[in-house]
């Protein structure tokens, strides 16, 4: 019996998270834009301008931004219903996202999908999915296609720790392991699945261990530091791209808000949330930019720019015409 090899799991070399203003600046900008975009969405939601479920990623921005920064443009991303940040990080405009949340014709998916179902072919963003676990095999499928074609593309698949008990995840993982598909499974372990804390949903609070049974590489680390996320995920991406081997990566993080806008989050103590808010990755990266020598004025300019971008996105959404077509998008007319 062989015990499968595993990759490094905590801690890592501190020098590996060294960075520069050039590298950090655009990542900070993305994180901030996602934060502001979601705050604006929350506001619009409470004004009744956005409906349905709205799942905010506020507090977890470093994960999607760091992970997607390590990708190339042609690479694929597959995500859950909590995917505004992922779509933005992959290049989708805040205008298109906000208009979608408003259910407008100019929305990313014409007002048909809403918050949970952002898709962008242009950006190789293969969607936000609402059924927990169901998108994991889809990500394996995109990776399968990349290997089939030999085009070198890598797929990142995001999901929560709550998804790790469902069959779709298990099967996607097993097949990717067996067929050595170039995919990076990224578990955003935000420690809650709706109102359920880790210890009530997992016998072992380490999702990355699932890799063992599939001889799959794994990694596990804290997700506060966007550079660290980028570096560590880059290793997995490199493994996928060069040896076509999948990796299961678990990133520990925390969502500041409720599961969705309709969840008051009563299952967590104020202290716990405060503790995590003190570790806010946005503050951290802002401080780091200062440390690295970026002028306060430049940072403020960047922040003003983000503010303007999001205000524009909201205005665009507000002013856009209502969604008006749906019957056209049920089946595609075949050419042949």
């Amino acid at each position, binding site marked *: 019996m062989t015990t499968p090899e595993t990759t490094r799991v905590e801690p890592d070399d501190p020098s590996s998270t060294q960075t520069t203003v050039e590298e950090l600046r655009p990542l900070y900008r993305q994180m901030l834009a996602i934060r502001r975009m979601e705050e604006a969405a929350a506001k619009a939601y409470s004004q009744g301008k956005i409906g*349905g479920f709205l799942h905010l990623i506020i507090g977890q921005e470093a994960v999607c931004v760091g992970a997607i920064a390590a990708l190339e443009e042609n690479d694929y991303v597959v995500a859950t219903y909590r995917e505004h940040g992922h779509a933005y990080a992959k290049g989708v405009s805040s205008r298109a996202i906000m208009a979608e949340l408003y259910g407008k014709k100019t929305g990313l998916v014409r007002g*048909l*999908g809403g918050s949970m179902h952002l898709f962008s072919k242009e950006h190789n963003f293969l969607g936000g999915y*609402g059924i927990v676990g169901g998108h994991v095999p889809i990500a394996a499928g995109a990776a399968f296609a990349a290997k089939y074609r030999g085009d070198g593309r890598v797929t990142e698949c995001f999901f929560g720790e709550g998804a790790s008990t469902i069959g779709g995840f298990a099967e996607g993982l097993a097949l990717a392991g067996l067929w050595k598909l170039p995919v990076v499974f990224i578990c955003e372990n935000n420690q809650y699945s709706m109102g359920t804390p880790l210890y009530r949903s997992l016998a072992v609070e380490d999702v990355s261990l699932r890799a063992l049974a599939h001889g799959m590489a794994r990694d596990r680390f804290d997700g506060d530091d966007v550079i660290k996320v980028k570096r560590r995920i880059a290793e997995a991406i490199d493994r996928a791209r060069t040896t076509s081997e999948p990796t299961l990566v678990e990133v520990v993080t925390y969502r500041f808000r409720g599961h969705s806008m309709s969840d008051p989050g009563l299952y967590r103590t104020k202290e716990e949330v405060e503790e995590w808010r003190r570790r806010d990755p946005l503050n951290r990266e802002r401080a780091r930019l200062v440390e690295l020598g970026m002028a306060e004025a430049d940072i403020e300019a960047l922040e003003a720019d983000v503010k303007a971008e999001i205000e524009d996105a909201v205005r665009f959404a507000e002013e856009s015409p209502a969604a008006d077509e*749906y019957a056209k998008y*049920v089946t595609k007319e075949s050419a042949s």
Partner: protein
Amino acid sequence: MSVISYREALNQAMREEMERDASVFIMGEEVGHYNGAYKVTQGLLQRFSERRVIDAPIAEMGFAGIGVGAAMVGLRPIIEFMTFNFSLVAIDQIVNNAAKIFQMSGGQFNVPIVFRGPGGPAVQVGSQHSQALESLYANVPGLKVVMPATAVDAKGLLKTAIRDDNPVVFIEGETLYNTTWEVPDPAAGDFVIPFGKSDVKRAGKDVTLIAWSKMVWTCLDAAKALAADGIEAEVVDVRSLRPLDVDGLAASVAKTGRCVIVEVGWPVAGFGAEVAYQVQRACMDALDAPIERVTSDDVPMPYAKNLEDEVQPQVKDVVAAVRRVLYLD
């Protein structure tokens, strides 16, 4: 009698049956500490403890199957799907196990289990979360399929479901939890509603509107609108799709001579087609006009509110169908 909400009625039904029978337990996502995603199980954990109100991880196939196994050896599980959209990952347990074990075992093991939770389109939650899946389950022998439209039906039917010795698919209206209705007080004694009986929610002589779940309310509104034009519609609530009360539906149509079937599901092979077939056969000679069906459009549900409304049957659609069967336009 008290006027209570649909949510409260369901809660009472479970609470009473759990008091009555120690073999009844509830399992599902967020049913305990969170008191239910839609607060239907509010307070049950506190009353019955973690032993009988069990928060499950996201593993519908797993906990639905645990329910089936537990039911085989004599427990009476209530399995809550946070919504019936998620029942699709567990449908193998429902269709291939729960529905068939009594038969496969030659009558040795029955499976007294309730699969319950909200179904049908909610509001702006998109196509994966807005589906009426009753037609799938109603097709399958070995299952019973029940869909209450009001608080009183919710209570009486859920109690019957929990006591039934067979698997029951109990689909609640996701948008009905806050609706209210008169319900007998618990103190007034045991209150149950048998399966297989439709219910006339509004009497009328000119046309029969057949519906279930949320569409009963749409039909009641339509009946009100029609009454303004002097048309008296009878609204019959199917309540139990399997077994179906063909006699009850036919009696109404025999009286009115006209029939409109309203469902929020998709048109092709929707359960309304079965109702139409049964009513047509039973009332061949009594029908003064072809049966009309009103359904949602044949599309996955869009997110935008205006489109969502366009897709689903509205009062005006029901009124228009009634006018067609009355040859008024």
